[in-house]
């Protein structure tokens, strides 16, 4: 893998790229019958490339089942990778064993969607937050450990006196803070946040999102943020990638993407967000796309979006558009701009 690393344009450690994912594919075999004959595959992630710059928030958005979470899990090496390459801090970790991944995992931690299921109900909050330290043998003596947990609790806005309680004694928002504190215990550089606020009340969402933004500023974290709630994404992101059926269709800085979406799917996705003003809402086009998201098991040929696209052209049905940089610096995968 060393020659592959030297080929990389961003190989020196001081550069701005924290993680680079090239042409990532995650396919799940579909088997049938007694002998588990493979009859096909579900291409959950089918050629996804992106890079994370240090200190930014990069969001992956898209409908349920489009492969956002699978992409993130594969990037964490929690999901077998079918093809592609993952570079983390300049190191190719695509083929690392789980043992080799252990030191790397200290640098990349995960925040989960479900603040109820992601905390072990039989562990005290102190042990949940300090668990990464114990797992990596960094807990030190009892005094040091307790001090570190107190520090982490204070950092996420929890009262350190609550360390002896169990998760069920906390509210949803507080639990999510516990999850965030746990993910920060090892001073990671990358946090992968899988829908971290979508299970929370709207009023609590804002608090947690703001906490995450403060933490990012204080600790210089990089976020890979997965969400389907576009207003949250708009609030927190620096750059946004839009996914559809296992592929990225557009990557752009936040404001250009939200103000002038260029890929027809991005446009449709943004149009689906209701506007909190009845006058504007009434004057907006009701529906840009029709139909359902096709099955991932049998995706359309060419551009996956062509059966629903209002601007479909003949080549869309046969040729898969590549994700290419366009004149305004965004990356778009669409024949309209080729």
């Amino acid at each position: 893998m060393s020659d592959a690393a030297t080929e990389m344009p961003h190989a020196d450690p001081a550069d701005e790229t924290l993680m680079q994912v090239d042409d990532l594919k995650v396919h799940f075999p579909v088997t049938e019958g007694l002998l588990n004959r493979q009859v096909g595959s579900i291409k959950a992630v089918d050629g996804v490339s992106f890079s994370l710059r240090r200190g930014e928030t990069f969001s992956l958005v898209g409908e349920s089942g489009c492969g956002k979470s699978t992409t993130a899990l594969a990037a964490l090496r929690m999901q077998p990778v079918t093809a592609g390459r993952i570079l983390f801090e300049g190191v190719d970790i695509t083929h690392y064993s789980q043992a080799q991944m252990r030191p790397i995992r200290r640098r990349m931690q995960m925040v989960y969607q479900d603040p109820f299921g992601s905390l072990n109900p039989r562990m005290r909050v102190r042990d949940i937050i300090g668990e990464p330290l114990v797992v990596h043998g960094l807990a030190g003596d009892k005094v040091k450990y307790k001090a570190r947990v107190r520090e982490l609790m204070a950092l996420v806005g929890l009262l350190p006196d609550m360390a002896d309680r169990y998760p069920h004694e906390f509210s949803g928002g507080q639990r999510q803070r516990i999850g965030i504190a746990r993910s920060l215990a090892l001073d990671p550089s990358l946090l992968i946040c899988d829908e971290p606020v979508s299970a929370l009340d709207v009023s609590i969402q804002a608090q947690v999102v703001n906490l995450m933004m403060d933490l990012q500023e204080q600790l210089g974290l990089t976020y890979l943020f997965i969400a389907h709630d576009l207003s949250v994404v708009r609030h927190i992101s620096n750059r946004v990638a839009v996914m559809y059926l296992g592929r990225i269709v557009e990557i752009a800085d936040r404001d250009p993407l939200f103000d002038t979406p260029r890929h027809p799917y991005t446009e449709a996705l943004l149009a689906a967000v209701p506007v909190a003003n009845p006058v504007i809402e009434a004057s907006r086009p009701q529906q840009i796309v029709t139909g359902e998201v096709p099955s991932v098991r049998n995706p359309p040929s060419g551009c996956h979006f062509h059966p629903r696209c209002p601007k479909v052209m003949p080549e869309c049905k046969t040729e898969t558009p590549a994700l290419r940089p366009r004149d305004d610096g965004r990356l778009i995968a669409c024949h309209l701009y080729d």
Partner: protein
Amino acid sequence: MTDTALPKTMPETAPSPLVAGARHPIVAFIQRLIREKPLGAFGGGLFLIFLVCGLLANIIAPYAANETNMALRLEAPSLSHWLGTDHLGRDLLSRVLIGAQLSMMVGFLAAGLATVVSIVLGLLSGYLGGRTDMLIQRFVDAWMIFPDLLLLIVVVSIVGSGMPQIVLVLGLLYGIGGSRIVRGAVISVRENMYTHAAQSMGARTLYILWYHILPNVMPVVIVLFTTRVGAAILAEAGLSFLGLGVPPPAPTWGGMLSGDGRTYMYMAPWLAIAPGVCLTIVVYSINVFGDALRDLLDPRMRGSR
């Protein structure tokens, strides 16, 4: 559920560290048991009485277990023989007490072994999944084809009857069968996100099994253990009934029920009643105690009844 809302506080059951420091955790736990699970506490108390009787049987028994008195055969309960005597004039109370010792020993050792076997097989099978799971489960399937009693009879008739082999066979029997139950619980716990979280932070498999999976399948394991204690005591009684249990003249409850108890049932019903009632009480008490333990050890149940 708002972020600012105070967590549900339970001043009674989850005292602040200052108050808790005054009481030993075991004392506090027993107090909770009595307050929140009176039936379980009653069961635990009953069971404790039998346990102590069993342990101290040799001291508190008024006569030796095999001391015969031909003048007093099949005597009804009296002041000198509280539970009467059997056809050889042996004191029934003494035999029941010493029988408690043997029955408890069989019950606990067999259930203990069974639980260990169930946990090991269930954890490996449920957590590792895939090929390991397949292999272990087909082995369990094959094992479960044999009826329990048949297997016991075969083993005992080959190696002869005696406590070690009965405990071993019962332990393996219940353990392998019970591993299915543990496996099911493991599979459901494994799917929880906290298991995933531990994996993603780089925890090793053994660590996850010990700190995340095992504590969360403990409710199942506790119930499994307590039901197996009762079942093992009954199975030993059944074996004794067939003449394959712990060999006489050792006084086991099963042996007393099935041997003399059955033969002289019409002339001296107390011979069957005493060990039968003891058996029933012990099995019942350990079951209600196990259920109470399961509930109390779950932190989510704190403060609820």
